[in-house]
């Protein structure tokens, strides 16, 4: 299926303004697994007739991993160029598919001259359900399934968003179960702070293995995340325990898209 996703440039040329810019992110654009999450989000937005657009080829890394890695120059280059593009299109509202983009755009761009209303995709989807624009089909997709939510650090502790993804999971016909470490006590998947792009330092265990043990203990059938990097780490962790047949790792957007039969 080809998704018709307009770019900001196309919208502008047609004299239109979208209600929200969908900031896809690098993982969402290039990583094969994360692209599926991107499509789920785009399908939900399209289905709900949200007037949205993407930057397409004009999008560039927010600079998050550069700043966390200590390279402020690369971060500033990325941030200032992105802000020029965003301000050029007079963007007011942004939804992101990644908590790292979300955090950077929401918290770190304003003092550089880029102030927008920034939402994580779980927040926007929750809003679509609350306002009746999206209804889930009670098709028993997740009947009897235990679903746990792994809090991405940059969504949870970094920005205090704990409820929106949980409300979405609770709107499904499955059961939300919590891991022993959740919300403010949630354990990192091991990818943040630019760790995604390097080997871990010497230790006696990988962080994603430690976290996957929490998942196994929760006896969940599905691990839901809201971050493409957490998704990678948890998928690897589940594979490490040879549990990929029993435990699925899915983004909350994918769960909702499935439940809405999109």
């Amino acid at each position, binding site marked *: 299926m080809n998704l018709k996703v307009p770019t900001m440039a196309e919208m502008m040329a047609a004299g239109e303004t979208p209600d929200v810019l969908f900031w896809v992110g690098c993982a969402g654009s290039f990583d094969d697994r994360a692209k599926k999450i991107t499509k789920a989000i785009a399908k939900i937005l399209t289905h709900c007739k949200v007037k949205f657009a993407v930057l397409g080829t004009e999008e560039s890394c927010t600079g998050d991993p550069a700043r966390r890695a200590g390279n402020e120059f690369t971060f500033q280059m990325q941030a200032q160029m992105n802000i020029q593009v965003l301000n050029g299109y007079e963007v007011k509202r942004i939804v992101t598919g990644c908590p790292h983009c979300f955090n950077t755009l929401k918290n770190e761009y304003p003092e550089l001259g880029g102030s927008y209303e920034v939402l994580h995709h779980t927040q926007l989807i929750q809003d679509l359900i609350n306002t009746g624009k999206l209804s889930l089909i009670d098709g028993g997709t997740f009947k009897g399934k235990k679903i746990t939510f792994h809090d991405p650090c940059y969504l949870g502790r970094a920005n205090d968003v704990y409820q929106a993804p949980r409300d979405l999971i609770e709107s499904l016909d499955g059961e939300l179960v919590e891991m022993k470490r959740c919300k403010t006590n949630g354990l990192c998947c091991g990818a943040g702070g630019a760790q995604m792009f390097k080997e*871990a330092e010497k230790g006696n265990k990988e962080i994603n293995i430690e976290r996957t043990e929490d998942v196994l203990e929760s006896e969940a059938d599905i691990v839901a995340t809201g971050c493409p990097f957490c998704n990678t780490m948890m998928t690897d962790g589940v594979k490490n325990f040879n549990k990929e047949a029993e435990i699925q790792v899915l983004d909350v957007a994918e769960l909702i898209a499935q439940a809405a039969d999109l």
Partner: protein
Amino acid sequence: MIAHLVFVILALVSIAIFSWKLSSIVKQIKLGRPTNRTDRVGDRIKTMLLVAFGQKKMFNRPIPAILHFIFYVAFIITQIELIEVFIDGFTGSHRFFYHAGLGSFYTFVISSIEVLSVLTFIATLIFFARRNLIKIPRFTSSDLNGWARNDANLILLFELLLIIFIFMMNSADEADKIMHSNVGYGFAVSQYLGPLFFGQITNMELLHIFSSIGWWGHLVMVFVFLNYLPYSKHLHILFAFPNTYFSNLNAKGKFNNMESVEAEVKLMLDPSADPYAAAPAAEAPQRFGAKDVQDLSWKQLLDAYSCTECGRCTSACPANQTGKLLSPRKIMMDTRDRLSEIGANNFELNDGKSLLGDYITPEELWACTSCNACVQECPVNIDPLSIIVDLRRYLVMEESKVPTELTGMLTNIENNGAPWQFSPADRMKWTEEN
């Protein structure tokens, strides 16, 4: 009369030494770079009331929270008795408030202090056990080896001595009063301890001596403790309050902006900038990031002195839990140790040593996932992550010491706007794929 004089000299000398030491610490903290933490006064007061006075974050772990709360309340209420001890010392009276005609209210206050003191005594023994017998992991890990472990036990010993001495005084006074008038003061605990320990003594002078030993012992311990504070993790009983007041009130995910880099990049990107323009008036160029304590902000240095080494940060750290070298607690202890080294060394900054390298190694820094668990956990709102990031910034921007894989990631971002080697032209490909 001699006792009177000894008291006054002791009090003045110990307060003077403490003030001198405290002023050195304040001077050390002021070595830090400026950061604005004086805005949003209302939010700051609220944070301080909740986190420091209310100890909100302690209650994530209920058992130590309750034990610690007993200490805290006992410490505050005991100040009333301490005021009396001081008045008695200065005026040469004994139990000034009692003789001031406070009557049953006096008995009530002293009784409350006694009950809290007994609870504190028990809590102290439990704390001893948690550290030395039950060996709770965050109190036995290697980052506490050496002085830190002794410091913790010494504080507990001081607490016990303080309590033993005050009960000695109260009990001897009870026995004395019962001997005189058949009725004691009726203090909640020492009305029983008095007859128990001193009931057999019929010599009034001897009772007075015991009472005096209690009074002097308690007083000397107060002075010892006061002057021990600046060298100890116990300084948190004072610094927790300013430290929470000056908390970071932004979202935890927001890293501080480096204005110098922002300005430089702005110039680079500005097509109308004059490349031949004279450089702005020469200020001594600041280091990018932090190599040593004076490159950190004063708040980060205040953080270091506020740390009580409880280890909640380290026990929550994903890197530490999986055997990596990083311990956020050690980051704070190292920062304090380095800062007090400079203070002890007459503020000589160029001693050939630095926080990065001599105290903290790059391996520790590169283990951090920036997950904010340490920041979340800290009961007094210390931010170890910001120090880790500033040290990383120095490594990367001043010394180009970047882990090889990260060099690739950074190059990709600079070349093609993504951490991986993909062409920006392919950013829309996901729309065409199934």
